[in-house]
């Protein structure tokens, strides 16, 4: 499996656009800056929704209204982050795919998506009974806390990708090599 992923990453790395993006004077920096600054839109709206559920923000605005109205700018922000994220991966595919932090981030993003689906499902089923309450019911608050926690770790992992402590290019313990998907005799890092 690790070899399959590595070979795919090498194939992507060999494409001309990947090289152009990676070696461009400014394009990579602009893509990365857009990815980070769009946090203000996507995570900003998401955190406000979660804080509302916990009763820490906008307690006198109906919860469904906050969730509904801030959803669209949030999704616009996530779309931009998704596109720029793919471009960042496309620029440096081998190192990204073998980064422990990148892998944890991707797993957590799946966790965030599942949590968001369950959160919205539960909210829509029950919101009429607690919409005007300052705090949402405990189950909804748990979902909000999980969301806050997951996304905080996503941001931390995203920041850690830049560090080479666990890169395959350096001698690593067997466990790290397994988790990072390092391939014996690989020539590309």
């Amino acid at each position: 499996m690790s070899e399959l992923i590595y070979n795919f990453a090498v194939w992507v790395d060999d494409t001309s656009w990947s090289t152009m993006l990676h070696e461009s004077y400014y394009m990579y920096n602009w893509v990365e800056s857009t990815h980070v600054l769009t946090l203000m839109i996507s995570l900003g709206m998401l955190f406000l929704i979660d804080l509302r559920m916990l009763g820490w923000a906008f307690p006198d605005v109906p919860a469904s209204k906050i969730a509904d109205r801030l959803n669209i700018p949030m999704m616009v922000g996530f779309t931009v982050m998704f596109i720029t994220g793919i471009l960042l991966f496309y620029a440096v595919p081998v190192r990204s795919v073998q980064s422990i932090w990148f892998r944890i981030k991707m797993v957590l993003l799946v966790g965030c998506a599942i949590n968001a689906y369950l959160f919205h499902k539960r909210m829509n089923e029950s919101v009429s009974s607690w919409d005007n309450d300052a705090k949402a019911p405990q189950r909804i608050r748990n979902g909000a806390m999980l969301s806050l926690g997951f996304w905080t770790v996503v941001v931390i992992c995203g920041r850690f990708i830049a560090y080479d402590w666990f890169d395959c290019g350096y001698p690593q313990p067997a466990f790290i090599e397994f988790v990072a998907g390092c391939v014996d005799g690989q020539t590309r890092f």
Partner: protein
Amino acid sequence: MPTSILGPYFRTIVTVAVIAAALVFSFTYARDGVYVEIQPLFEWMETTWFGYVGKTWGAAFATIQAGHLIGLAVLGGCVLVSDGRLLGIVLTDVPHRIVVDRADAVFFWALATLLLTGVFMACGVAMKIYYLPVYWYKMLGLACGILFHYYVRRPLVAHELGSINPIVLKMTAIASILVWFLVAATGRWIGFSG
């Protein structure tokens, strides 16, 4: 009704005076004198506990930086919701007083988080940022943002929206978004410099 010593347009006069002082400071040799005077402060910052931790453990620095990004996200969200309401884009069926006041409460804590994490990070790379022009643009933007938010914007939106000139209201909202975006963008550019 008693008026201040500067008359009924006290706030306007102070605003003009601050802008004029900032321009004079920026474009004269007064800036160079202050710049040299504060260098010992930045040298000292690197010797503090924050500076030691930031320089020694990259993981600690990166984690605090992630906290800075979270604070940025929340502050950005507050600014967009609050100014979006003033522009008539977001939460238009909620009274503006509620949206602006509640967003302001969260804004304060986000700003506090940014300032605390920012000071920690600054201590870790004090001499690098001292020589970076983009860092000083960020500080200018930050000071401008804080002053604009608390001294100009807040007293304006304390009045009924309907009584405020719509052009002034929209300009205020746009300026608020611009200044905080400038702070965020220059902060990102610090990472690419030096």
